[in-house]
């Protein structure tokens, strides 16, 4: 019995048994580890950096919002805008609103007004749309049923438009109204 056993070919000859100190093959796990490390580092890098990297290109809504706020303040609170007197904020005059409506409708006056309001310069140009609404969101009309103030270019579809709403009081009509200022 023992003779036949010893006569068999050995399944694992001593020569090819695994020698951890002499082994030059089977190192694919090292590749895997370095690969996964590079992957993880890339992942973390993407997560930390790229989210903020794209933010400046996503929208310019902050910029136009501050512009619409500023234009709304000028229109609602100063006599360069619609205000009746320099001491009473938000009390507007229908006459000035009518004048503004005319200006917004005339291209050269509209361009001048944008420059006065700081919306256009040599390098930048923003569009402006101003409207006066009743508190129930219908157009504000004067006694002869004409729309008092609703002018400027048509609002674009896929651009960030900043909107500021001011609540104003029309003294002539004893009415509260909403002044919508939109900049893009």
């Amino acid at each position, binding site marked *: 019995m023992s003779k036949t056993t010893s006569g068999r070919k050995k399944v694992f000859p001593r020569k090819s048994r695994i020698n951890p100190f002499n082994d030059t093959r089977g190192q694919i796990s090292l590749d895997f580890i370095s690969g996964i490390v590079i992957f993880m580092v890339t992942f973390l890098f993407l997560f930390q950096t790229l*989210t903020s990297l794209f*933010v400046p290109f*996503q929208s310019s*809504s902050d910029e136009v919002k501050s512009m619409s706020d500023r234009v709304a303040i000028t229109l609602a609170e100063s006599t360069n805008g619609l205000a009746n007197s320099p001491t009473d904020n938000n009390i507007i005059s229908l006459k000035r609103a009518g004048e503004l409506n005319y200006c917004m409708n005339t291209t050269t006056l509209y361009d001048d007004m944008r420059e006065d309001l700081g919306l256009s310069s040599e390098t930048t140009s923003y569009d402006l749309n101003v409207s006066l609404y009743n508190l*129930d969101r219908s157009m504000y009309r004067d006694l002869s049923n004409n729309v008092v103030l609703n002018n400027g270019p048509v609002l674009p579809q896929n651009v960030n438009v900043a909107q500021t709403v001011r609540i104003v009081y029309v*003294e002539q009509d004893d009415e509260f109204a909403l002044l919508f200022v939109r900049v893009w």
Partner: protein
Amino acid sequence: MIPGVQAILKDNTGQMYTLEGAATAIMIVFLVVFIVQASPLTPLTSSASHQQVESQIETSGSDLLIVLDYVPEGETNSPLKKALVDWTGVEFDGQSSTYPNSVYDLTSVFNRALLADGTAYNLVVAYQNDNKKWDSRAMLWNGRPSDNAVLVSRKVVIHDEDAISASFIPDLSPNSSFYNILDVRLTLWRM
């Protein structure tokens, strides 16, 4: 043919690396797209709790108090002061009907200006008590405000000749025509 080019054309090994490279590039591009899409709350994302919404509500609130506190020509008091003088101290909860007329007028302006675009409000009147400390009572109450509520306020001076109806507001200076000072606090929040 140039031997170098011949060698390239004959070469049919090492093509796995190119495929892996392409696959990795695609994975990285998808990962970038996924991460950019999956971070929905950057400071510029538009939502109902956006900073700009709060500042718009604050502007509306202070505008509202300014225009309501304007005395039109031919009138003695502003609509806001009329309502404060006529108010008897009753707290009007929810949208219950308000009285007297001046308070009703005030409430209807608030409702038309604020409720229409989904802004809820509370109106609290603070006054100086006998110990010169601020006490307050709700006038129009629509429930507890949310976490990102905005508060705007305006001071209204009351004189003896205004003959204020609310009896719990004391006369701070019996020897002069000054009666008390009211701090009208309007809390606004998105519903």
